[in-house]
């Protein structure tokens, strides 16, 4: 089989950290290539290079044997690449037909030839077996229908290579079946497909070839027949654990501090229940899009839920984030830059943000600046912040690890009972990761309950007392005590029997 696209020693690094490292791989023409790997394995970066979104920092790509180096998405599209993202690129306020033609309409007497675009759209809808009027507005379509419109766009541009990135996450089982029929038809029409998914059963059923990435490198690539699902999982993991984690200093106590019962929100999470004892670190593992961060937001009162209850020390939590902070809840968000810190403000202002009301002095609740200075300095010490003048230096001048310490420190000023850490080591170098694990242990040792959410299995295995696994908005299972087995956790997240 000839290669439509060839990666030749392709690399990409961001700020010295390599995301894709020397990948050499053929995308067979007329085939369906399944691309699998853990979060951060380099799948997205690799595909973004194909789609012209990021530029390689080493190696090259060959398209039908010719050098291929798209400068932007438009050039990739002109070359015949269609990228169907998880967030669809459609305009909700335009019709199906208009969405196909938005970059250039056929004209008649200087005006858009509506008959022509309608006919073309109807033709494509029929080819995809989609019973939707070309004049329907995108906002009125279901998730599955929107995705098929996106595929129609690819067909309309006569793309040779269609990349699907996690296409089934928001589809109903019926829509998924239809999507697979369509992919089968595309293949029969001579399209080449790259299919990225965490649903390994789908990958096994759909793909002719499978490539496994791990830490930016290609681990295995072979015809699909050569793979069983356990072998896929085995290929994705296989990193060695070493002394990367501090020893735990406390044992979980008997009494339950944080309890979540039957929490549900349609379309987001379903029947989530767990308890965390004082001094315990509970790990929550889930792949991208499993609902872990959405769960964190609901627990903290940022998003609403329809059923279930949350309690700290047996007292039910209600209201929004404000009430929950007062009740002893702290939340370290996964998006430190946008949600965790005021990047341009001094470190001290960030540290005192949550607890500033406490420093109000009568009359007029004027801030007691001396007390704020003393307390923020004490907390900076406590989290071992490496910074100069915390009243002058802006948060953005710190390294990722020290920024995260500021976020944790800001909550420590409140003496919370329960800590929700959502991906606390994202974008943090190895040394600083260790210090964050130490902080997590200290939070627990002080009698608090810690919910440690992460997509890195290794750190959960190294830090947590128990691990729960989340998939598609549900807790699918858990592991009660170390030693934890990496492949068992990953299998559960993929909803596969290992």
């Amino acid at each position, binding site marked *: 089989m000839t290669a439509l696209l060839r990666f030749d020693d392709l690399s990409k690094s961001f700020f010295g950290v390599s995301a894709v490292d020397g990948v050499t791989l053929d995308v067979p023409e007329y085939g369906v290539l399944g691309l699998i790997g853990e979060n951060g394995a380099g799948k997205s970066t690799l595909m973004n290079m194909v789609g012209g979104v990021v530029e390689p920092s080493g190696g090259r790509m060959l398209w039908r044997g010719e050098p291929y180096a798209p400068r932007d998405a438009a050039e990739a599209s002109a070359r015949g690449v269609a990228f169907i993202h998880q967030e669809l690129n459609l*305009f909700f306020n335009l019709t199906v037909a208009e969405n196909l033609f938005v*970059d250039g309409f056929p004209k008649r007497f200087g005006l*858009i030839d509506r008959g022509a675009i309608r006919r073309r759209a109807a033709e494509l809808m029929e080819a995809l077996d989609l019973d939707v009027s070309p004049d329907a507005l995108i*906002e009125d379509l279901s998730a599955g229908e929107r995705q098929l419109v996106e595929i129609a766009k690819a067909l309309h541009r006569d793309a040779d290579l269609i990349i699907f990135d996690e296409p089934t996450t928001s*589809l109903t*089982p019926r829509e998924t079946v239809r999507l697979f029929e369509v992919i089968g038809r595309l293949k029969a029409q001579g399209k080449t497909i790259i299919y990225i998914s965490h649903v390994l059963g789908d990958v096994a059923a759909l793909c002719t070839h499978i490539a496994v990435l791990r830490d930016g490198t290609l681990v295995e690539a072979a015809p699909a027949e050569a793979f069983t699902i356990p072998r896929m999982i085995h290929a994705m993991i296989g990193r060695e654990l070493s002394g990367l984690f501090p020893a735990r200093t406390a044992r979980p106590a008997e009494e339950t501090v944080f309890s979540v019962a039957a929490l549900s929100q349609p*379309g987001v999470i379903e029947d989530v229940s767990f308890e965390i004892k004082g001094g315990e670190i509970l790990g929550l593992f889930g792949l991208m899009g499993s609902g872990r961060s*959405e769960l964190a937001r609901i627990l903290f009162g940022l998003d609403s839920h329809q059923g279930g209850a949350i309690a700290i020390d047996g007292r039910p939590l209600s209201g929004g984030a404000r009430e929950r902070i007062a009740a002893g809840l702290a939340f370290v968000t996964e998006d430190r830059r946008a949600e965790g810190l005021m990047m341009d403000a001094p470190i001290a202002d960030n540290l005192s943000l949550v607890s500033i009301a406490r420093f109000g002095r009568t009359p007029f609740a004027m801030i007691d600046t001396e007390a704020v200075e003393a307390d923020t300095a004490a907390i900076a010490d406590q989290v071992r912040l490496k910074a100069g003048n915390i009243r002058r230096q802006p948060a953005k001048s710190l390294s990722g690890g020290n920024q995260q310490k500021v976020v944790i420190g800001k909550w420590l000023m409140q003496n919370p009972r329960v800590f929700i850490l959502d991906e606390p080591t994202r974008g943090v170098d190895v040394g600083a990761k260790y210090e964050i694990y130490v902080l997590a242990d200290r939070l627990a040792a002080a009698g608090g309950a810690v919910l440690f959410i992460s997509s890195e299995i290794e750190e959960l295995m190294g830090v947590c007392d128990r691990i729960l696994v989340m998939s*598609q908005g549900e807790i699918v299972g858990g592991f009660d005590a170390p030693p934890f087995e990496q492949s068992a956790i990953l299998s559960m997240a993929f909803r596969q029997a290992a």
Partner: protein
Amino acid sequence: MGDLLARLLLKNATALIFAGVVLLFYAQAPHFLSVENFANIVKQSSFIGISAVGISFVLLTRGIDLSVGSVMYLGPLIAGFAMRDLGIGVAGGLVTAAIAGIAMGALNALFIVRFNIAPFIVTLATLFFFRGAGTWMTSSRQFDFDRSLLDFGLSSVAGVPVPVVFFVVFVVLAHIVLSRTTFGRQIYAVGADPEVARKAGVRVEFVKARVYMISSGCAAVAGFVLIAQIGRLDVAFGEGREFDVIAAAVLGGVSLFGGIGSALGAAVGALLIQTVKTGLVFTTVNLYLQPIVLAGVIFAAVLIDSLRVIRLRATRKRSIRPLTR
């Protein structure tokens, strides 16, 4: 079912408010429902209406144009000087006003697109700049036009007064441009999501630059047409009108959040505002209460706009698990 009803209500909010307002005035003063009264309303709303149609282009791209009130003043003023000093006649004056308006829009666009400054800030600055330029040119004195302008302004075509002719022509043209040209559909695309539009190959900057020129061009023509009714231009002309114009567009269903609305809607919004103003004169409502009533109507429109957008956001929220329906 309740969901569907809410949707229908939100989609047809303007029509419903309009019907309610007309019925209310009819109940208060039956002679409100007369042909000549409505002809009058259409004529009086043409000034705000033409400019509201223009600003809709800007609002549809998620922009804002606060300078229209000053453009209404400076555009006709430049035309006035040209008519007086160059003797170009009324038609020449109209063209000059339009070109001057487009040039002012180009200045707005330059700062907004090229230097990437927030439209609110840029057009707030030019609001003062354009009026300041006019004040300087006239030394703050009233500018008197030639009698020929008044003759033109008070004339009619086949019984239809000139301002109404302009209003209708602008609405129809704008409607065609918005719904039947690539540029028009790309305006909606940019308003829905500028990033996605860029990725889809839409020249976002180009689209944005043009909408500000259209908005200012329409404002200048609107000003010229109204000046043609009075024959003179004083320093305060058009002052504060940007808010009438924006209110009319929003009342007509053009969203301040971009991507939703039509030229027809903006025109209806302008008619609605004028209907309320005229109707209040018919009824015995205290003169000093009238601005409060008008404020209430505008507030209702903006509230409906927000509700609509909140609903839309909810439907676009990414879901992790399929929603069972």
